[in-house]
């Protein structure tokens, strides 16, 4: 039997070893939590998005989408996407209630049929509107959606970045892991690499032209997603960002999709 003092001494020796084994995961999680905390309190925003799809031979096609988003206490965000272009899908709307690890609730409004359809949203690995962005890349980034591992610090442009790995904790992700570059000052996601189910590099996201809103919240003006395996890429250009526009839960009801806004 150890004397109490010896036990304490052993514990003191053992804890730092355990802590350092755990610290990469812990530190990664802390960074993700800090990034979420930094962004908390934006309340709501609206923005316009120009999405330009480019194929391997350089041909492009464009989509215009208006986005409205509402922060929800204790749950994932709610978001409404309204399609303006291409013209044949004009008036199509997609409403999403995101819920961390649980599958999102999602509704689609099809103006040609004047019909609101609840859709299954469990599998989010498919492409959004034929682009190189998957649904899961564009969803609300909740801390519990991943487990994390801290890798290193390194310069990223004008800033210094935390480089962390994220492992999807939700079912049916198209990825085995992601590597994210998040700046240490304001937790802006500058770059991310996506590894497919065969663990090979699939896509790289680079974000730029960051602007600050309400003196605090940062949003990228551009996001470019390159698929290394198909040679396709998609550029998102964000503009007309407006925060705290007075949106409420009543603007995010499935039945209001029939309104002609």
């Amino acid at each position, binding site marked *: 039997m150890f004397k109490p003092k010896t036990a304490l001494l052993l514990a003191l020796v053992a804890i730092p070893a355990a802590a350092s084994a755990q610290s990469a995961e812990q530190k990664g999680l802390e960074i993700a939590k800090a990034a979420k905390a930094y962004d908390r309190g934006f309340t709501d925003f609206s923005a316009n998005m120009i999405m330009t799809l480019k*194929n391997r031979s350089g041909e492009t096609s464009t989509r215009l989408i208006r986005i409205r988003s509402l922060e929800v206490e204790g749950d994932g965000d709610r978001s409404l996407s309204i399609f303006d272009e291409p013209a044949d899908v004009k008036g199509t709307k997609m409403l999403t209630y995101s819920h961390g690890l649980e599958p999102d609730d999602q509704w689609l409004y099809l103006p040609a049929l004047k019909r609101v359809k609840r859709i299954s949203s469990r599998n989010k690995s498919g492409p959004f509107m*034929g682009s190189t962005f998957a649904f899961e890349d564009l969803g609300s980034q909740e801390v519990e959606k991943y487990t994390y591992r801290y890798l290193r610090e390194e310069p990223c442009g004008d800033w210094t970045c935390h480089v962390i790995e994220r492992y999807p904790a939700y079912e049916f992700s198209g990825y085995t892991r992601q590597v994210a570059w998040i700046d240490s000052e304001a937790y802006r996601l500058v770059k991310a690499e996506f590894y497919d189910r065969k663990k090979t590099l699939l896509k790289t996201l680079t974000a730029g032209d960051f602007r600050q809103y309400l003196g605090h919240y940062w949003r990228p003006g551009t996001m470019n997603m390159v698929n290394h395996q198909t040679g396709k890429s998609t550029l998102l250009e964000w503009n007309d960002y407006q925060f705290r526009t007075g949106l409420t839960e009543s603007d995010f009801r499935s039945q209001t999709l029939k309104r002609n806004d």
Partner: protein
Amino acid sequence: MRRAFFFAVLLLTSAGARAEFSGNVAVEGQAFGESAQFDQQFDSNVTLSFEPRWNGEWNDADDLWSLELFLRADDGDAGREHADIREALWLRIDGDNEWRVGINTMFWGVAESQHLVDVINQIDQVEGIDGEDKLGQPMIHLKRYQDWGVLDFLVLPGFRERTFQSAAGRLRTPLVVDTEQAAYESSDEERHVDYAFRFSQTYGDLDLGVSWFRGTSRDPLLLPGSDRDGNPVLIPFYQQMAQLGVDAQWIYRDWIWRLEFIRREARSNDYGAYVAGFEYTFYGIVETDIDFGTLVEYSADSRPEGEGGAFDHDIFVGGRFGFNDAQSSEILAGFVIDTENRGRSFRVEGSRRFGASWKGTLELQTFSNIDADDLLAALQNDDYLLLEMAYYF
């Protein structure tokens, strides 16, 4: 229609109003594989359609308006040439109440193969046999949001008669329907005011709707008669009816389960009908971006064989390929099989975008093994191929 245009122009010119203009113009060619069963019917034709839409808002978007028209011009078949106001609507948003006054087109229900609970709008049957093209319905509609559900109250003044193919049209009954002689059970005829109510709510992964309608049935009985020249025709007779409808959809993993049930009471008969089935989707098949959805729906109707709708004890089996590409390419295919007499109809429909503004649709419909006494017997020579190119703006 002139009044609706005037209404729009008035709104467009009023201070602070902002109008958006959109829509499509399309050319459609249709060819039939077999020669016509009845005299006068055409074997192929080309038609043009135009569907313009204007909408706008005022009062800080508490008031919205919309005007949507549909026009089809036809070279051979006068029965398909028509114009309709799909929407001419003023929408007022007042907190948890939404008021809609004017003409509107709406959709109730969840099923894919047929639409039982969807009774507000009349079917624009010359536009398609699937019941998804509908005529605008005049209404005063209050939608009220409660924590425990959404309530819809509708007053429907003014009835719209179903459109039917003329003698030259394919996909019609053996005897031509003489819409000029349309008759009504109610002495108010097409001026009868109908009422409808609906409750709907989402409970987690379950969506539930309960609806009730009382008024002029949108489905006419077709009674034998004769036209002015003494030729035999069918005369549409619109009864009064009351209908209770229930629709439910439940999402479980990659499954979507659907049910629609109605109980309809009218002077000719009281009956029940339901459609129930599921959709299961395989995502990213064979390591591509393609999704493949499978659909199975069973329809039953308590009316005796021959008296019921086209869907009595029928199974619908369908598949949907979504290519998830830049052109939004899609293929839908479906069989309807009558389990009692083994009659079959098959349809496959493919569509994709061309450039930024064009969309092409190819549709093939066949009917086979149809019994002589089946409602579909009149269509047994009407297998067709349809190509549509639409320009959207």
